[in-house]
């Protein structure tokens, strides 16, 4: 979706405000909501679904609230969407109905195992071959996508060059919407500053961004 989260290339947000010796958490509620979101992955589902819950925040609220307030929004939206919590329960703090979960709540050892082991996103087997070669000239497709996507707006329609292939990875556009993992070839694509930002740009900076095959078309030179 063309959401407020898709910030790349916007101007006017002011200087970067870097705090010296910043603690991991500033407030205890940040600790708790971080842990709650992570522990809830077991029943709330894939990370792209959580990202999309944040993308669906009211845009003014998104900008006016801090990172861990976004995580409060994410867990509440998902828990309500999936029927684990109701508005009334959230208001009162009193648990009403109880929906059975697919798995028991992960205990501390399971959580530690998840953190140390990770959740790889690649789904490679011998059948998965990339269509594009390293060095291939491509164009990021210009697509209207109303749901979750990682095709950042600032690269849509722009030409670039494939610099790496990372195997086939879970496709965010479907997995965020319960439509399956549909693994797709994942590439890194290099875009020149002038192509991204305008013909008057003289800087020789560039952006490398990871894009799945359905986001790309081969670019043929000439007519």
């Amino acid at each position: 979706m063309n959401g407020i989260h898709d910030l790349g290339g916007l101007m006017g947000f002011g200087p970067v405000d870097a705090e010296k010796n910043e603690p991991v958490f500033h407030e205890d509620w940040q600790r708790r909501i971080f842990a709650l979101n992570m522990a809830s992955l077991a029943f709330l589902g894939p990370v792209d679904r959580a990202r999309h819950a944040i993308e669906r925040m009211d845009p003014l609220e998104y900008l006016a609230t801090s990172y861990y307030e976004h995580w409060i929004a994410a867990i509440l939206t998902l828990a309500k969407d999936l029927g684990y919590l109701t508005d009334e329960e959230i208001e009162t703090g009193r648990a009403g109905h109880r929906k059975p979960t697919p798995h028991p709540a992960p205990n501390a050892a399971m959580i530690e195992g998840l953190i140390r082991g990770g959740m790889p996103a690649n789904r490679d087997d011998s059948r998965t071959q990339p269509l594009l070669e390293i060095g291939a000239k491509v164009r990021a497709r210009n697509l209207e996508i109303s749901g979750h996507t990682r095709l950042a707006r600032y690269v849509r329609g722009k030409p670039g060059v494939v610099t790496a292939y990372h195997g086939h990875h879970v496709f965010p556009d479907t997995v965020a919407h319960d439509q399956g993992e549909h693994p797709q070839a994942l590439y890194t694509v290099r875009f020149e500053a002038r192509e991204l930002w305008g013909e008057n740009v003289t800087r020789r900076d560039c952006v490398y961004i990871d894009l799945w095959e359905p986001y790309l078309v081969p670019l043929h030179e000439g007519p």
Partner: protein
Amino acid sequence: MSEHDDSHHGAAASRARRSDRSDEHNRDLTERVARIESLLIQKGLVDKAALDKLVDIYEHDLGPMNGAKVIARAWVDPAYKRRLLENATAAIAELGFGGLQGEHMVVVENTPRVHNVVVCTLCSCYPWPVLGLPPTWYKDAAYRSRVVIDPRSILAEFGTTLEEDVEVRVWDSSAEIRYLVLPQRPENTEHLSEEQLAKLIDRESMIGVRKVRRS
């Protein structure tokens, strides 16, 4: 933007940048999060000990000290550096680091000609096993919006100036690939041990907004 120093100021989003909230706002958030925690525990959806374990790991075990060990090793061991640039996930695992948000690591090397800097414009993706949880500025709109279009102005705000002919490469972590910058080793550090070198390496240098300085 970079021609006008004051053009970054006066933005309306300053409220979102601050990590310090008013006491009243914090009380409100504290109560709201406590209600969510209590509900999820009552419903058997989360386990209290698991929550405490999560906080403990991310507050104490994971942080930029892990990444600093990886970088220091690469500086003193050319064979390790080759492995790190070829297969970062495996090379980082050699030092005992890996897992969630570090399943697919790529290390990008700074040289006299190329300077790398990492961002996630769409959310705040970050290599947790080697850098821990990201600092507030990395997650804020100011950094995420501007570093792709005007990286040199961001670097300047961190006190980093580069020659015109240095190529700045911005890595936007839009998938589950996580990037770590291998900064240049400062000059006149030949006498330092791997442990002493690791102490010079900070989080900012591994995101790519700062260079590593001697002492």
